[in-house]
């Protein structure tokens, strides 16, 4: 099997396999729309190459034209041509339908889980020393005030957790408090869900605004107990400078 159509198809298929399956081995997977865009560019290149001269045009389009005209076809060829001629309008119809049919999915939500804190909370450090007594007190306060949602095991699986959307944060996950500084937690605990900016969708959060009920000392100690209990360390300025 040879000819420009076949080579073009091989190039396209190879490009697709490269973008879809090989590239994700070394980097993040590409969105489908980007893969489609790249393939469209490759197809354009093939078309330009194939139509550069009269002989190359004939080599590329000739077999297609002969196939479509149906002249002298028998058996499998006839059936294949009929199938193509029937499938094309059906695909156009299906495309038309799928583009016009109204979506019945709820609006997509792009909630930012860790939005930027207000300026006054940036760079604060925990004023209490990490003594066993302070950590112990923090864990006790955590058990009383936080564990109903965030869980006795710091895993976001407290008895009240299943009812909430978004779910309570899982502190043992390396993607939550391990990525944050103590000052960030201080802000989130103090101001609660209602303190979030618009991209954090504060209207959905059940996180209490603890400044109404707990002194700052308790909050700093809860943070200490939380990191210790979840076996995580806060992100520090030193790490960021590296």
């Amino acid at each position: 099997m040879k000819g420009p159509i076949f080579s073009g198809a091989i190039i396209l298929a190879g490009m697709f396999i490269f973008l879809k399956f090989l590239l994700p081995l070394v980097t993040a997977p590409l969105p489908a729309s980007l893969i489609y865009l790249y393939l469209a560019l490759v197809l354009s290149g093939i078309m330009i190459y194939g139509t550069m001269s009269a002989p190359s045009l004939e080599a590329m389009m000739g077999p297609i034209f002969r196939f479509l005209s149906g002249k002298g076809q028998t058996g499998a060829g006839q059936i294949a041509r009929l199938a193509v001629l029937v499938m094309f309008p059906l695909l156009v119809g299906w495309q038309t339908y799928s583009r016009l049919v109204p979506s019945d999915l709820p609006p997509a939500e792009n909630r930012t889980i860790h939005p930027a804190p207000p300026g006054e909370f940036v760079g604060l450090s925990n004023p209490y020393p990490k003594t066993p007594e302070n950590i112990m007190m923090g864990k006790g306060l955590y058990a009383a005030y936080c564990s109903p949602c965030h869980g006795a095991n710091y895993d976001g699986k407290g008895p009240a957790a299943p009812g909430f959307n978004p779910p309570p944060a899982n502190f043992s996950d390396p993607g939550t408090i391990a990525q944050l500084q103590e000052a960030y937690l201080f802000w989130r605990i103090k101001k609660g869900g209602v303190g979030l900016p618009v991209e954090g969708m504060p209207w959905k959060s059940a996180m209490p605004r603890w400044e109404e009920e707990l002194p700052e000392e308790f909050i700093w100690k809860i943070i200490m107990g939380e990191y210790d209990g979840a076996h995580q360390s806060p992100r520090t300025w030193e790490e960021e400078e590296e």
Partner: protein
Amino acid sequence: MLNGRGSLRTLLIFGLFGVLWFSSVFANEPPASEDVGSVSVRMYQIEGSLPSEDPNSSQWDSVPSSEFNLAPQVHWPPRIQEVTVKSVKVKGVHNGQELAILVEYADPTEDAADAAALEFMVGDKPAHFAHGQEMLQVEGGPVNIWFWKNESGKAVDMSAKGFKTLESQPHQDVQAKGVWQNGTWKVVFSRSLKTEDSQDVQVEEGEWRSVAFAFWDGAVVDGLVKEKGGQKAVSTWWYIRAEPTADNSIFGWVILGLALAAAFELVIVRKLRKGQSV
């Protein structure tokens, strides 16, 4: 001239080009599927009268339900750590004029103070699910609450924007009917899709609204009602929609697309057969 093998090859090549073209349909990422519970309530469109008066009506049997987990209200004092109602099944129907929403949940005893409520955001501003309480960086809107209590046997149409602002509306637009049977409450709330009252949620067919749920177990334990006021089972916001009337004009466009594609093919094939270049 093409023989069978040549045609097969051409078909294969066509197929590959076709797959590329076809893949444009999927060029947009499919939505991520939710694997925990429901995310929305669909109020299905039905003809004629709604089963608003009868939670046990057989009309409800054919309506698919959504299910939502509930949590003890721990967001604000007075908190509660353990609640009776753990989840709720919700069904909805509408007929273009009226809507009815059925909530069904387990509660082992029927008590005078048993109660259920639906909450909706009103207007364009997002309202916090806890009675539209104040948010610090976002200007919020009010909520409309439909509250039913067993001992009164009726619904109260209420409004709130912030804690301690909950009040009964001057204009009452909501009805409710509850039936307790074998450890299960079924409560139907009903209203017209739209009202004249600016304090009410306005339901437009095909448009998503936000809804939240709350339930109180009014059982009396040691002389005190177990759940009342802020001590209740709650959900945060979920979506609800009155399903729109099917738009049949789409099929007209589909037929037009089919016809145009077929006509295009006909022209091409005729030209090719006459030996013209396309």
